[in-house]
């Protein structure tokens, strides 16, 4: 299998190229722009045989993709941050109409304040829009998860779109070595697109997405819930097949040194490698530390998380989004609810917002605090980490009274 250099955006484009979309509608936004650009390049140079629609907004990008895929072709788009927020309304149309679009989302914080850098608030804000969500740990995984997402989303009993989330800059612009399948191998795995549910065809008429009466809406949503239930099983099957074909193991959740761990962190996205690095370090020093990475966030793998974390007494769940007003940030709330029958101490730890680096040093500090709880020296630990002193006083100005 060829080894190539890609940054995360390049890997997403490579996966899209391998899946042979017929229509591409994309709007550039930092840090996704190079996806929109490279897709345009691919169409211009003939490596993708598709109609490229230079849409005027993300809202139109998703709208055009829905229209196009309903005619029976695979589509491609990508977005980030406020672009995803602008798409929000139509994301619900894609999922509700069971249009299995696969979309890379380059994670970037939402405004305000304005920021160009990575956090997960953009996709976390979409967690209940009826899309499957996978969070990549490496550039290799961007390619792998994108390819798998086509199979999972388009499965006849799933028929639910996917967001493949990659951290802005940490993955989108990080050049890494990637093993890729050949075009034929990938095509044999992804398979041609086939319309399996609703479609727009002048010769076989139906009218899609008309007003749904109250007497049917609940059932339509329940259908989606069943799609999610199946997606959890189908994801495992597809990951297994992927491993058999290409030799790379993918995870819905990835436990790391958890068997005998006394303290553990739960991570999501690109920070996860750094967590493992620090776990290795701590293990070398005799600390029983572990880590769990969540890759599949929707459907949420509550059972597996419960199973892998059941022996850990102190757990810090790290969210790269603030979860304002919530009982813990999004990932932490989910983990807590998955673990409600255990007596583990679970802390919601918030940081890494807007590209603030989550370094090895940060993880060392987090593990120290978790260990302190484990030793009984502390009962609670700060929920926001790497916070500046005096955050309320960032702007102190003289005013005329």
């Amino acid at each position, binding site marked *: 299998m060829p*080894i190539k*250099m890609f*940054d995360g955006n390049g890997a997403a484009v490579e996966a899209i190229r391998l899946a042979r979309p017929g229509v591409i509608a994309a709007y550039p936004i*930092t*840090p996704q722009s190079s996806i929109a650009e490279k897709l345009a390049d691919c169409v211009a140079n003939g490596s993708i045989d598709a109609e490229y629609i230079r849409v005027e907004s993300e809202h139109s990008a998703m709208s055009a993709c829905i229209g196009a895929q309903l005619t029976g072709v695979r589509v491609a788009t990508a977005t980030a941050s406020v672009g995803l927020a602008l798409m929000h309304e139509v994301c619900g149309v894609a999922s509700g109409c069971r249009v299995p679009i696969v979309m890379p989302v380059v994670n970037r914080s939402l405004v305000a304040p304005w920021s*160009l850098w990575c956090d997960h608030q953009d996709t976390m804000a979409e967690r209940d829009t009826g899309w499957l969500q996978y969070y990549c740990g*490496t550039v290799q995984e961007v390619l792998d998860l994108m390819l798998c997402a086509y199979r999972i989303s388009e499965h006849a009993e799933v028929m639910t779109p996917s967001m493949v989330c990659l951290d802005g*800059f*940490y*993955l989108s*612009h*990080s*050049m*890494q*070595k990637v093993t890729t399948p050949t075009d034929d191998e990938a095509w044999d795995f992804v398979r041609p697109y086939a319309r399996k549910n609703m479609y727009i065809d002048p010769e076989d008429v139906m009218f899609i997405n008309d007003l749904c009466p109250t007497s049917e809406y609940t059932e339509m949503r329940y259908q989606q819930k069943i799609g999610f239930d199946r997606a959890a099983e189908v994801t495992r099957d597809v990951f297994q097949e992927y491993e058999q074909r290409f030799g790379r193991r993918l995870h819905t959740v990835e436990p790391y040194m958890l068997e005998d761990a006394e303290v553990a962190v739960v991570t999501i996205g*690109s*920070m*996860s*490698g*750094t967590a*493992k*690095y620090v776990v*290795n370090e701590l293990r070398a020093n005799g600390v029983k530390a572990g880590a769990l990475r969540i890759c599949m966030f929707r459907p949420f793998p509550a059972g597996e998380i419960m199973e892998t974390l059941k022996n850990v007494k102190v757990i810090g769940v790290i969210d790269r989004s603030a979860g304002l007003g919530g009982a813990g940030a999004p990932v932490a709330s989910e983990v807590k609810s998955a673990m409600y029958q255990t007596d583990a101490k679970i802390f919601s730890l918030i940081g890494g917002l807007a590209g603030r*680096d*989550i*370094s*090895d*040093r940060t993880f060392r500090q987090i593990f120290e605090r978790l260990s302190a709880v484990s030793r009984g020296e502390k009962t609670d630990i700060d929920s926001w980490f790497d916070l500046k002193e005096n955050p309320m006083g960032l702007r102190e100005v003289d005013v005329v009274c």
Partner: protein
Amino acid sequence: MKKIKFYGIGGQGAVTAAKIFSEAVSLYQNEYAITVPAYGHERRGAPVYAHIIVDENPVLLNCYVYEPDVILVMDDTLIDKDVDVGEGCTEKTVLVLNSGSKEMIQRYKDTYGFKRVYACDGTTVAKNILNMNIPNSAMLGALAKTGIVTIEAMERAIQDGFGKVGEKNVNAARDAYERTYEA
């Protein structure tokens, strides 16, 4: 594991250089690398950074470089631009500096305490060979002088990365490599 940081000014190709360097070690030296560029608004003329971590094994760390083993400075005027290129550096940190000025090189040593400095006037090399003021390929050649990557691996990655103008840039890298000296 080696941690490297590139400093440059928007338009000099520092981020591209980081990606090419990653490719050189990953594809042509059988190692692994991650690069994390720190972007701001895309502007020519503003300082830019890139963080690179290289290892024989797949790199787990995915964060910035705080204690660099090697730093590459694409433009010696950065010292006057409120950029602390000495941040996190120790006596062991190797500096690769694009400068043709002995005074400037001395200022870098005095200001930040670098003990090992590789210098090369990459800008002049770029002007002579590429006929333009983009010193990134030349400075990648200079970086090879430190031994962190072979010049052969770097040349192959430059050839891939620069496409049609690959050969010219390879020449710039080779020329700069040969001119680079330990100051």
